C-alpha cells in the first residue's frame, strides 16, 4: 500500500440502528474506508466515556459513536443521553488538546447504510489530515492533563442527575 497514514477508528455501534446500517452498507456492497473497527453495544447510551478514553489512550486515532436518530431510539432516549455525555466528553478532550474531529457522534437508522458509510469516509479523511493521535505525548506529555481530567469527569456524571 502507499505511504499515506491509515488512522484506526474505534466505532461503537448501537445494535438496532447503526450496527444494522453497517450491515446494510455491506449487503449493498457500498465501498468505504475500512479504518473503522466496530464494537456492538445494545444502545449508544451504553457508551461509557471511559470506553472512549480507553480507546484513545490505547492507540485509536479516533472514536465514532453511532446511534439511532433522536426520537427513534430503540430504548426511547438512550441516544439523547449518549449525546449529552458526548458533548461533555468533547469539552474535556478539547482541554486535553485532543482535536474535536477525533471523537464524533453519528445518527444512522437501520436503513441508512449510505449515511454511516459516508460518515466513516469523512471522519477517516479528517483524521488522516490530523495525523496519528499520540495520547501519551498529546495529553500526558503536554503535562497537567491530570489536573483537568478529574473535575470534568465529575461534571460528566453530575450532568446525569
Amino acid at each position, binding site marked *: *500500500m502507499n505511504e499515506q497514514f491509515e488512522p484506526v477508528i474505534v466505532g461503537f455501534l448501537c445494535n438496532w440502528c447503526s450496527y444494522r446500517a453497517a450491515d446494510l452498507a455491506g449487503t449493498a456492497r457500498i465501498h468505504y474506508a*475500512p479504518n473503522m473497527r466496530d*464494537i456492538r453495544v445494545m444502545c449508544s447510551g*451504553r457508551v461509557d466515556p471511559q470506553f472512549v478514553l480507553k480507546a484513545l489512550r490505547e492507540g485509536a486515532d479516533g472514536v465514532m459513536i453511532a446511534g439511532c436518530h433522536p426520537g427513534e431510539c430503540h430504548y426511547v432516549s438512550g441516544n439523547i443521553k449518549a449525546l449529552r455525555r458526548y458533548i461533555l466528553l468533547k469539552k474535556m478532550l478539547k482541554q486535553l488538546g485532543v482535536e474535536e474531529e477525533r471523537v464524533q457522534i453519528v445518527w444512522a437508522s437501520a436503513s441508512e447504510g449510505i449515511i454511516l458509510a459516508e460518515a466513516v469516509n469523512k471522519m477517516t479523511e479528517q483524521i488522516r489530515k490530523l495525523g496519528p493521535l499520540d495520547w501519551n505525548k498529546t495529553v500526558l506529555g503536554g503535562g497537567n492533563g491530570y489536573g483537568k481530567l478529574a473535575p470534568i469527569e465529575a461534571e460528566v456524571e453530575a450532568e446525569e442527575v
Partner: protein
Amino acid sequence: MSEEKVGVYICHCGTNIAKTVDVEEVATWAGEQPNVEIAREYKFMCSSLGQDLIEEDIKEKGLTRVVVSSCSPHMHEKTFRTACERGGLNPFFFEMANIREHDSWITDDKEAATKKAKALTNAAIERVVHHQPLEPIPVEINPNTLVVGGGISGITAALELADAGYHVYLVEREPSIGGHMAQLDKTFPTLDCSACILTPKMVDVGQHPNITLLTYSEVEKVDGYLGNYTVAVRKKARYVDEEHCTGCGICIEKCPFKVIDNIFEAGLGERKVIYRPFPQAVPKYPVIDTENCVYFQRGKCKACQLFCPTEPNSIDFEQKDEIIQIQVGNIILATGYDLFDTRRIPQYGYGRLANVFTSLEFERMVNAAGPTDGKILLRDMETAPETVAIVHCVGSRDKNYNEYCSKVCCMYSLKFAHLVHERLPGAEVYNFYIDMRTPGKGYEEFYHRLLEEGTHFIRGRVAEVTDAARNPGEEGKLIVQAEDTLIGKQRRIPVDMVILSAGIEARSDSKEISQLFKMGCDFDGFFIERHPKLDPIATMTDGIYIAGTCQGPKDIPESVSQGAAAAARVSSLISRGTVMMEPIRASINQEECSGCRICNNMCPYNAIVFHEDRHVSEVITALCQGCGTCVAACPSGIISGAHFTNDQVLSEIEGILWDVRKQPELVPGD
C-alpha cells in the same frame, strides 16, 4: 491470563469473505493468540458440517469458549449459539465477529480487509474469555391484544384475533369505527360499494363477544414490555349513557342545531350537534359535540334529553371522561393516515376558487348516502359540470411537500373519471398525470377501460389552476394549465370542475404516537417496520406491530392483508404462551450501591426502584430491557449489564487495537 480454551473459526462464506480477506492467514494468526486452543478456517461455517466442527471441538478439545468470524450476528448468532449448546456449552460462551458485512464487502483492499478481520476476531477472542453463563428469561404472554385504530386494517386484525378465540381491545379515536373506507363510495378496480363490504365487518366487530370496543377513546399511557403491557385509555365523555341508549336516533332528529361536518362529510355536508358520524355507525350511540351544543355553551335547550324515550334517560350531561386500565400482551397499531391539505398548494386554488374540490369532497359527493345523494354538482349545489379535470399527484412526488408517491391516487383518480362518465354521460373528463401507476390485480385493465370510456389523459403535472381568462373560450371557466409532455406544448384546458387527488400523509400526531409506544417513525411520520422487506409488520419494539397506512401509503387490499398478517403474528405468540428473551439485563450490586440515585431517572422503563430503607437502588429484571444506559451512568461502576459488562467491552477494546495498542501510562481512573 485466564484458563479458558477458546476455539476460533474463520468462515470463507464461499468467496464472499475469502476473496478479500486472507482467511488462512487470519486463522493461523489467531491460533497464536493467548487462550486460543484451536483456530480453523472453513468454507461455510453455518453449514451443518461447519456447526459439527464446533460441536466436536468442544467435546474433544474441551473448548470453553467459541468465536466465529463470519457474517453479521443478526444473521447467524442464534445458529452458532445452538451449536455450542449442542456441544454442551452455555450458548453465551459464544462471540461472533462480523468480517463479511463490516469488512470483506466494504472494500477491495485485501491488506486492509485482512488487518480489520484480525482486529475484529481478536476483539471477540479477548471479549469471550470474560463471558459469563446466562440463561434466557422466559416471559409469559398475556393473551389479550390491543388494536389501536378502527379503520379497515384495525377491524381486520381485531376480527382475525377474536375469531381465533383471543380477546381484543379495539380503541378508536372517532365516535365510530370504519375509518376512511367508510367515507368512500366505490372501491377500485372492482367498483363494489365500499359501505356494502365494510358495514358487515363493522357489525361483526360491534357484536363479537371477544372484542371490547372503545370508540371515542384515545390511548394515554403505555407501560411494560412484550407479553405484559399496561395501557391507560381515555374514554372521552359522549354524554350518552351506552348502558341504556338504544340508538333510536330520536335525540338526533330533535336536536335543533346543525353544523358543518368537517370530518365525515369533509365539510361538504351538515350534521346535528348530537350526532352519529353516519347511519351505519358502530357503535350506534350518538355523541354530543359540546363546542357547538347550546346547552353546554349557554345552559339552555336539553331537547335531546327531553325527547329521549329510554328509561332511565340516556342523555347524561354530567358524564365525565374515564380512564380505563387494560392489560395486554401485544399491541397492533393501525392508526391510518391524514389526507394532504390541498390549501398548501396555492396555485391549485383550493379554498380560493369555488369549484376546486378535494378528492375526499368528491368521494362524499358521489356517495349515494352523501350530501348530494350521489349527484355530481358544482359548489352552488345545483349545476352539473360539463367538463371535469382530475389532477394527480397533489402533494405527492414533490420535494416541496412529500417526496414519496402516495400509491393510491392514480387508481382513485381513474375511479373518479369513471364515476363522472357514469353519472354525467357526455361530460368531458381530463386526467392530468405524471406517470400512470397501476400496479395491482386488475388495475392496469381498469386504466384500459377508462381509455375506452373516452377519458382525456394528459401526461403533464398541472402547473396551475386559474380563473384568469385569456381568450373568449375561457371566460367564466377554471383553466387548468399544464405542459402536455407527450406533445411538448403548453395547454390550457377550460373546465367547470377541478378535483385535486390529494396524497396520503402520516397522521399529524404520528411522532407523539410513536414515542407513546416507544417505537420509531420515519422522517415523513410513517411508523418504521422491523425490516423493510422481510418484516414489514413488526417494529423494533417486541410486541408492537403496525398495519395499514400508518406504515406507509397503501390501498385497501394491502391494508387488509397487513391487518391479518399482524393478527397472525400475535396469535402465534399467544399460542406459544411464553417466549424466551435475551438475558441482557442490568443488575445492581446491592452491597456496593452508594444510593446516589443517578441511575434512577436514567431508565426509560422505570425499571430501577430505590429502597429508601436500605438506601440502595435495584433493577427489576422483568422491566429492564437491557439498554445499559444506567450501567454507563453509574459513577461507582457497580451496575453490571449482563453480556455487556465493563470488563467485556474494555477487553474488546484492547483486542480490537491489537496492532496499534500502546501500553498506557498511568492515568487517574484506571
